[in-house]
């Protein structure tokens, strides 16, 4: 088999010089590997014993902070799949590209992975902006992207599987919980100024006003990277909301929580529910600044179930005892497993067949760290929403868990 691999390498080199050789080589490979020809009719990078996939996250730039965990989880999942025999008898090989926190670069690298490397699937992107940049490439070249981040919804592409929650899954259950448990009537909405917080707050406002009969007493967006919250905190003090509902991201998040604490607004006096703090963010913010506040997510590292315990253990073995696992990291871990399930159901690596299998509604994972998940025909996952209360040590105690929520990327009455 080694000589076989070598022949491919040399084939790659030669193909740079003469495109005609490529055709001949492909023909000769498929001639003696009938099995591969059957599971791969569209010329993806698949041999008799390997299949190549792409990982596309930012390893440099602003977003490296967030995306590091996601790509670590994807590599862990792929390693585990390989150890358990691979997919359709093939070991997964990874080609990793760096999106460099730059959205056009995501598009360019996607094209490279799909056109030049012919990868069978890509696990990647983090921000909505990077996904939107890469999306036209995936649709044109007919690739398959597994996207891990919880996001604003309003999208459903044939070429993307969304393994994080769309906005309604994350938001509605949390608001219902806070209205019921904390008897909350008035809400103050604050977020960073870009598409995800704004769309999320729009949904939250509709739900608060139309369903819960509550009142939004303030809505505020701060520029990304802003570190001054003094005036906003005074405004909040003036309005005295029952709940502060927050979607501040990145470095701003740290300043926001530090200044809240310094201004004497702590969990003893104020209920705060955020949709943008996972274990990853807590590392920077510091547990002591968050103590007692709530996050709504689908996953917390502290979840008490056997799947999660095994996952946390394996993750720490591979990436170090100090690593923490946030919501998106777990969602990224699901990507390769969902792909495996779909490929095995389809009996083929062909993108169209894998997508078709994914759309049947039969793809499910019983081994997901977050618990049972199922892929909806609309390309999103059925999942639970959970409210976690932060402790000083940077871990959350889960205080509420919803039923499985149906994904609804185009919610009626919320747009």
């Amino acid at each position, binding site marked *: 088999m080694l000589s076989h691999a070598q022949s491919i390498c040399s084939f790659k080199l030669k193909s740079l010089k003469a495109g005609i050789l490529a055709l001949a080589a492909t023909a000769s490979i498929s001639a003696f590997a009938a099995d591969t020809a059957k599971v791969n009719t569209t010329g993806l990078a698949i041999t008799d014993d390997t299949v190549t996939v792409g990982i596309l996250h930012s*390893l*440099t*730039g*602003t977003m*490296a*902070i967030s995306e*590091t965990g996601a790509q670590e989880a994807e590599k862990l999942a792929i390693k585990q799949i390989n150890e358990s025999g691979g997919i359709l008898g093939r070991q997964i090989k990874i080609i990793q590209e760096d999106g460099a926190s730059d959205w056009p670069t995501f598009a360019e690298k996607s094209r490279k992975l799909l056109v030049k490397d012919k990868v069978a699937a890509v696990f990647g992107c983090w921000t909505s902006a990077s996904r939107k940049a890469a999306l036209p490439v995936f649709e044109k070249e007919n690739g398959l992207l597994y996207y891990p981040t919880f996001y604003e919804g309003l999208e459903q592409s044939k070429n993307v599987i969304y393994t994080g929650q769309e906005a309604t899954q994350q938001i509605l259950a949390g608001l219902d919980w806070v209205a019921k448990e904390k008897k909350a009537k008035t809400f103050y909405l604050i977020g960073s*100024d870009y598409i995800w917080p704004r769309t999320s707050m729009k949904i939250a406002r509709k739900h608060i006003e139309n369903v819960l009969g509550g009142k939004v007493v303030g*809505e*505020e*967006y*701060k*520029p990304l*990277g*802003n*570190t*001054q919250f*003094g*005036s*906003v*905190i*005074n*405004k909040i*003090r*003036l309005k005295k909301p029952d709940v502060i509902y927050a979607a501040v991201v990145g*470095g*701003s998040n*740290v*300043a926001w929580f*530090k*200044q809240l*604490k*310094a*201004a*004497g607004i702590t969990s003893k006096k104020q209920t705060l529910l955020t949709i943008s703090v996972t274990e*990853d963010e807590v*590392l*920077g*913010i*510091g547990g*002591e600044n968050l103590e007692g506040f709530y996050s709504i997510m689908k996953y917390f590292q502290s979840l008490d179930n056997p799947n999660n315990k095994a996952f946390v253990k394996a993750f720490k073995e591979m990436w170090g005892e100090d690593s923490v696992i946030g919501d998106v990291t777990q969602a990224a871990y699901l990507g390769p497993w969902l792909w495996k399930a779909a490929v095995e159901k389809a009996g083929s690596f062909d993108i169209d067949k894998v997508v078709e299998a994914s759309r049947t509604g039969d793809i499910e994972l019983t081994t997901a760290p977050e618990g049972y998940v199922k892929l909806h025909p609309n390309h999103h996952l059925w999942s639970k929403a959970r409210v976690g209360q932060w402790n000083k040590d940077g871990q959350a105690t889960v205080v509420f868990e919803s039923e499985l929520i149906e994904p609804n990327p185009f919610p009626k009455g919320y747009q």
Partner: protein
Amino acid sequence: MGEYTLNELGSIFAMQGFAGISLFSVLLLMALGLAIIFGQMGVINMAHGEFMAVGAYVTYFLSSMTETYLPGFMPYYFLFAIVAAFFVAAIIGYFAEYALIRHLYKRPLDTLLATWGLSLIMQQCFRSIFGAREVSPTLPEWLLGSYQPTENIHIPLNGMFVLALTFFVTAGVFYLLFKSRWGLRVRATTQNRQMSGAVGINTKKVDRYTFALGCGIAGIAGAAFTTIASTGPTTGSLYIVDTFMVVVFGGAASLFGTIASAFSIAQAQSILEFFISGSMAKVYTLLVLVLILMFKPEGLFASKVRR
């Protein structure tokens, strides 16, 4: 406003006043180092934010060292961290001037590009050494929480600390520039380089120390800001825009201008923010700034410098 008591409104007014002053001290501390370098040497230092990050990382490093080896020293380490931040940033600045900047004095646009390149190099160094995640040093207890003169008024202690530090540093800079022999040389060099050289001032040495001082003050600012926000490899780039805004608006070669400009920008921003949304407050502040600069392109305080 019928639902609020006079006491409550008064408290919020007081706290809002402090929010403005606190923002002023933050902007001033950021801009001071840049104003020295830009104003006295005409060098546009795009890596200013990264020198602040150096200060912040020094603080973080000392915090974790103290926590591991000398837990009893925790309440005091922060003061030493500020001093260390100054010297580390100043030394890096000294060598940056020696290796890079001094070759480009006659080409201001090239220094812009070169220092921008330097900032990218420094960012990647931070990423390699400290990792991509944002970090925060453990702060001593006395910097956390708030001072409560009455039940409703909370004045953040970290804000008061930054305010005091800014006052201290500004006073120090003024003393150095306007009362010391060294400051005399710096001002002489700024006003007329050839003549200063002719009367025996080593202008190259003056340049190097001025640059180092500016970087050192950036380091102090970085250390102080760990009490407000977290530090990541690209933290510096967040500050650079605000910093330049303050310096340019104030008038490039005037320290008084920098102070006046930091004060007016901070007050405008924080008062507007209270009444309209944060993003719009920034838009209006910048709009007014652009308008003023259109009519007074040299900034608030024009510099009377012969170059």
